[in-house]
């Protein structure tokens, strides 16, 4: 059965918008070609869930965002997020467009580029064009195609060869107007032997109608470069969040994904590292709390092509109330990727009899000379442990929350950024209703 995607925009309007923004012709053409594909391709397949039943039609329309005169004009929630973390660089997108861009002069002097993607396609086309939509191709499925057609705002982060940046660069993607298309695209290019940490937050505020977030992240890590990519999604229940993250790794390149899935609405995310290069490494840590009647589908993937490439994927998810989560891990080792090592663990803790959690570890291995492993579990709070804690005078509520935080702690405590760790801790508390 073909599910026809209802396109939120027609070709004329898309062309007119692109031209009115004075985008380069190659981009206008790419958007139009992608829109056509979106009309032809199937929706992405979710394991055991049907995305066509989700609200994936609420794109709204492009609305120009007013640049911020000052960071004080931000909604309080966003202002808090960026407090004390502005020194490296900060990009803020509000609905369909970017409202703030800043980068420390000393980083700019080293050749680091940190700006919104709409500006970058004009000012740094030579650096953007070879990468845009190359890790997540517009013909993968209709949502990828639609994203490539309508993306807006976004982030472009470029780190030149041998440049090591030790302060995190930060972005905030805010949706607070349900009528505006919200489709940021993040593109990171880390040249050979460079190092960077990037952190973003997806937030929403005072929405009065449903919003579909169709987002994409592409990270290119060149020989010997290291990228740490942290992303926290805390979108409110009105937002259906569909996000694809892809990293392409060259020889000895490494990526560390740290993802906090703290949305209140239906969420599908797919975080994939493509280990092309020999000796490349990927480490993905996902922590998640599902609540309400959320439908959730998290996938982490590692595709090994390079010899001696290594991947590690860990997901820990807590599901309460009636949240329904499908958690997939896919380790694929291609023929020729000798001495590759792929490990994955998915653990789900269920807090209510109505919650559902499914962990699906998958190993697909086409090479003999490799090591790979997986572990998965779905369980409830252990009664014996609750008894033990209570026998020391700790109340049931506190005992259970100690156990729940303890379940997430092995991942949270590994997060190398203190501010992010605290933020996640706070979000977990909020999601657990405490």
């Amino acid at each position: 059965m073909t599910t026809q995607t209802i396109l939120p925009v027609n070709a004329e309007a898309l062309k007119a918008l692109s031209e009115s923004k004075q985008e380069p012709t190659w981009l206008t053409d790419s958007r139009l070609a992608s829109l056509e594909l979106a009309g032809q391709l199937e929706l992405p397949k979710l394991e055991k869930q049907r995305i066509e039943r989700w609200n994936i039609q609420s794109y709204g329309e492009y609305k120009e965002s007013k640049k911020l005169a000052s960071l004080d004009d931000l909604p309080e929630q966003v202002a808090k997020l960026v407090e004390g973390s502005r020194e490296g660089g900060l990009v803020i997108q509000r609905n369909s467009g970017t409202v703030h861009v800043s980068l420390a002069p000393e980083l700019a002097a080293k050749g680091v580029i940190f700006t919104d993607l709409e500006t970058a396609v004009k000012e740094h086309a030579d650096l953007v064009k070879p990468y845009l939509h190359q890790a997540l191709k517009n013909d993968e499925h209709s949502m990828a195609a639609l994203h490539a057609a309508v993306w807006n705002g976004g982030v472009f982060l470029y780190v030149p060869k041998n440049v090591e940046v030790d302060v995190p660069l930060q972005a905030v993607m805010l949706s607070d107007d349900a009528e505006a298309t919200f489709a940021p695209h993040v593109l990171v290019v880390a040249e050979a032997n460079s190092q960077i940490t990037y952190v973003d937050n997806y937030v929403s505020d005072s929405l009065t109608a449903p919003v579909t977030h169709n987002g994409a992240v592409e990270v290119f890590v060149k020989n010997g470069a290291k990228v740490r990519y942290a992303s926290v999604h805390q979108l409110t229940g009105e937002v259906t969040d569909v996000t694809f993250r892809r990293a392409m790794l060259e020889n000895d390149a490494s990526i560390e994904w740290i993802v906090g899935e703290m949305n209140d609405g239906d969420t599908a995310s797919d975080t994939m590292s493509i280990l092309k290069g020999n000796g490349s490494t990927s480490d993905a840590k996902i922590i998640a709390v599902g609540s309400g009647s959320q439908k959730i589908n998290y996938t982490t993937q590692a595709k090994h092509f390079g010899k001696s490439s290594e991947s590690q994927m860990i997901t820990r998810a807590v599901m309460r109330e009636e949240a329904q989560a499908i958690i997939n891990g896919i380790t694929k080792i291609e023929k020729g990727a000798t001495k590759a090592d792929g490990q994955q663990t998915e653990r789900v803790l269920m807090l209510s009899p109505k919650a559902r959690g499914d962990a699906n570890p998958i190993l697909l291995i086409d090479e003999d000379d490799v090591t790979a492993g997986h572990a998965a579990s779905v369980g409830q709070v252990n009664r014996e442990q609750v008894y033990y804690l209570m026998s020391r005078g700790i109340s049931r509520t506190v005992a259970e929350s100690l156990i729940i935080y303890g379940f997430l702690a092995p991942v949270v405590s590994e997060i190398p950024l203190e501010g992010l760790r605290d933020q996640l801790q706070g979000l977990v508390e909020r999601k657990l209703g405490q």
Partner: protein
Amino acid sequence: MSTKFVIEGLKATIEGKEILKGINLEMKGGEIHAIMGPNGTGKSTLASALMGHPKYEVTDGKVLLNDEDVLDMEVDERALAGLFLAMQYPSEIAGVTNSDFLRSSINARRGEGNEISLIKFIRQMEGKMKELEMNPEFAHRYLNEGFSGGEKKRNEILQMMMLDPKIVILDEIDSGLDIDALRIVANGVNAMKSEKRGFLIITHYQRLLNYITPDYVHVMMQGRIVKSGGPELAERLEAEGYDWIKEELGITDETVGQDA
């Protein structure tokens, strides 16, 4: 008021099977009682039923701590009332550090707004750990996770020392301990002896009782206390084993469930 702990006709079942068949025991602050008996006679069941383990169902009897009905209380309330059980098999809890756990336990007693200061807590904990010759690193380890048998036992004693209970039940605190560790743990217990505190020491060896002298010794078989006496009873058990008691009472199988 001096502590008074009374167990009266306590019966308990697990999964429908009656294990405790009417336990009677009375303890006062300052007293040390030992419960001895071979494996499978219901000693741990008694300890668990007193603490309120959810798997055990109390079907009859009374347990009073200073005239308060313990069996009416939730597990945490029993602890707050002054009951402490050093478990034979303490749980391992990943992700919860020993010190966070201990601090939560102490604060549960102090109540909201009256939490112990971090500095004071750390000083107390480090002091007690030193007495127990525990590596300070254990404060930051996850609760009992990857602890050896002996380390878990010391950790139970550490909790006892920090929580200052009225009635202490030690379930096989000596099992898995070498002589040095046994001495350390016994010293910990002896240091806690007080007129306000009663001890119920469960063991199937007499070994521990060389270090902690009991005032009363009770022998448990088939889910009952079948014999009580003074410290000399433990010594006779050490010398002669349990067979003479079985003979005296006409018991062939001392474990629970075979006596019907």
